[in-house]
């Protein structure tokens, strides 16, 4: 009887809850989380550069002006040119594409697989849970970057391999968090109710558990994006990511940049700033999103 009352109450509150428009939600987010909003602005800026790089970039990032090797920042080349006379600004704009591509896909793949494994592990329990959790323990035993390095060195240097290398270490981290959330959701009465009504495991997982663990999933996804961008830069820096002349931020920082640090510091400086800013933006946004979505941290 009590179960029925609770269900009815839940259903009533769902219908009665005022529905806010996206603008209202965004305005509230900006008001309550100004740092998160700043992070969002940086991310949107990166996204804008990545999408419209072809229009916005003043020069072809692959073709250098051979008469202008190591040109200082100027009105023609705001961020200067590199050792092949290529425009550093244009390469950074195109580099945003690689950073976002790798960051988004690696986080998405890693988080999605992790979340699915977490939910399955929590719902099935028993041996499946034991087996999956020990597997996650093994993966967690390796530091994130070291594991990515090992995988990238096995697969060889290529952008798609970087995505795989970065996504695998993400899986156990997300699986743990989502499993914990799913364990709690699993104990809810409405889950018991649909089970009692004869719903299949697949239906319970897809329609009743997964929708209720999206908050930790989104938080992890955003948090991992910044880490993935940094990992891409690190792998490229170590020669395991994209190969030259691909305009990757990490690659721009490595390669010949250290050799010309004194002669042309702008070759390393601007890609360094771009990486820092991108990671900073995603971290700020991710933190604020966590605060906003976590009921324990939500005020009022």
């Amino acid at each position, binding site marked *: 009887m009590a179960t029925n009352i609770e269900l009815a109450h839940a259903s009533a509150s769902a219908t009665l809850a005022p529905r806010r428009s996206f603008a209202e939600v965004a305005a509230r987010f900006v008001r309550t989380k100004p740092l998160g909003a700043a992070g969002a602005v940086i991310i949107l800026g990166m996204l804008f550069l990545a999408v419209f790089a072809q229009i916005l970039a003043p020069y072809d990032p*692959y*073709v*250098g002006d*051979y008469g202008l*090797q190591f040109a200082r920042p100027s009105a023609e080349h705001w961020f200067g040119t590199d*050792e*092949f*006379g290529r425009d550093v600004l244009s390469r950074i704009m195109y580099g945003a594409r690689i950073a976002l591509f790798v960051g988004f896909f690696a986080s998405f793949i890693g988080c999605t697989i992790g979340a699915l494994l977490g939910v399955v592990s929590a719902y099935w329990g028993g041996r499946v849970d034991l087996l999956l959790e020990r597997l996650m323990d093994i993966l967690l035993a390796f530091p994130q970057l070291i594991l990515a390095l090992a995988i990238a060195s096995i697969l060889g*240097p*290529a952008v798609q391999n970087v995505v795989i290398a970065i996504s695998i270490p993400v899986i156990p981290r997300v699986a743990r968090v989502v499993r914990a959330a799913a364990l709690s959701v699993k104990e809810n009465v409405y889950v018991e109710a649909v089970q009692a009504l004869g719903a299949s495991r697949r239906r319970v997982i897809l329609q009743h558990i997964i929708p209720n663990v999206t908050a930790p999933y989104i938080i992890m996804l955003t948090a991992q994006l910044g880490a993935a961008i940094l990992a891409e830069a690190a792998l490229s820096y170590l*020669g395991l990511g994209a*190969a*030259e*002349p*691909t305009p990757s931020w990490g690659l721009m920082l*490595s*390669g*010949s940049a*250290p*050799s*010309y*640090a*004194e*002669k042309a510091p702008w070759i390393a400086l601007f890609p360094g700033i771009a990486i820092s800013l991108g990671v900073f933006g995603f971290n700020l946004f991710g933190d604020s999103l966590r605060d906003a979505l976590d009921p324990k941290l939500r005020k009022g």
Partner: protein
Amino acid sequence: MRRHRTIIAVVGLCVLIGSLVVVAPAAVQAETPRRGGVLLAAIAADAPSLDPHQEQTFATIELVAPLYSTLIQIDPLSYPKIIGDAATEWKIAPDGLTYTFKLRQGIRFHDGSTLTSADVKATYDKIVFPPSGVRSIRKNAYSAIASIEAPDPTTVVFLLKFPSASLLGNLASPWNVIFPKKYLDRDPNYFKSNVVGSGPFKFKSYTRGSTFEGERNPDYFVKDRPYLDGYKFFISTETSVRAAALRSGRAWIEFRTMPLAEVEAIRKQLGDKVVVQDTAATGQFGIAMNQTTKPFADIRVRKALTLGLDRYTASRVLYPIASLKDVGGLMRPGTEFATPESELLKLPGFGRDSEKNRAEAKRLLAEAGYPNGFKVVLKNRNVRVPYIDFGVFVVQEWRKIGIEAEHRPLETAAWFADGRDTGSFEVIINGVFNYMDDPDLFLERYTTGDTNNWGRFSDPRIDDLFARQTRALDPAERKRLVNEMEKIVLENAYHIPGLWWARSVVHWAKVKNYVAPPNHYSNQKLQDVWLSED
């Protein structure tokens, strides 16, 4: 006052004489070799294997050359003069068909056994007539040799099929290190991962990808050599890491080369503490096209790719950052056998009008069925100077004719495996580097089936001309044949020559008695090198 002046004059005279007495021996002493110390060196790659007969990279020879002896050698202090090493004297018969070498007595390998003519014969049999399963990189340079004999323990005789102008020079190859016969009998590939030599240094330790160390051989057959207690190489493919090692004194020499920008920075920081030896280099970097695969079997495509490379701009751009300097054909420009510039300019890709070359390249591609170009994977070695820099330039240049090349740098061993051994590539950056400007050494790679024919092409005209030039004792006739062969290779674009290299060897001034030859293979034994005090 006068007395004071006299005293000052006497004191001044004493100081002058005293200083002459003190300074003169000091100056002499400065040139007196000092014993002791471990030479610290940086190197840009790790060795694919330790057997110099089977390898062709500085990554092997620089590490192991100090551990071995050769029959004869290029004078460490006077390139390209040939002097003895294990052999003290040699005679060439008047018909040019018999070379007789007398060995020093009492040379011992590091395992204590004596070096005899049997070891020299076993070594050269392995190089000239390699057993199956054993690679011999420079085999074709010894095609004149009919057999090798060891009539007594100190005599080695090379019997020739025909007189060869290059043979003595080729026998002075730093790669032809003498291995003890007993190990070769057991396993001809034994020295790919083991070292037993008779050189001035003995093997001490090797950590793959990190360090290689040798220590003084107290039983070395040259009296009072080596001066050093040992040597240690630090391996790093990153130019900036090696430059930092030089700046900080973690390494005192980089034998191969440093790009000019790094040289400038090191000079600026260390001033007189460093010395830079600038030399030309007997090496050229280019591109091999796998002609067993489409579309590179098509001469129009090959010609388009060579036309699409602006070598003159490349020289201007790449010299400061990668030491790639001179435009030339298959023999080093300015040397005896090189094609004259006026003739070279007529060959595909060597004309100075780059726009005209590109237009012709696009026309050829369209004619071959690729009006919009095509995509290709350009494999490369993951060594920045000059491989990566040259690769990046090539990718940029080819974009201008519609060729979209995906640049894929590989570890040294994988690069050799794909390019040289298995032919698992479409196009690949490779280098032609030898210790002498000899046509046999530089041109054998264009003959059918040669280990170094990475492009895997075959042209009977080239094989015939190579065989004829190696027999030609008249230099003018040999030059004519060499130039003719070169013309066929370049006109058919069997290979894309890039630029000839230059060396800037940076070392601390305390590293004494190392004279940089125009290559980084010879003079690597380090037996005469010594370290002065700081």
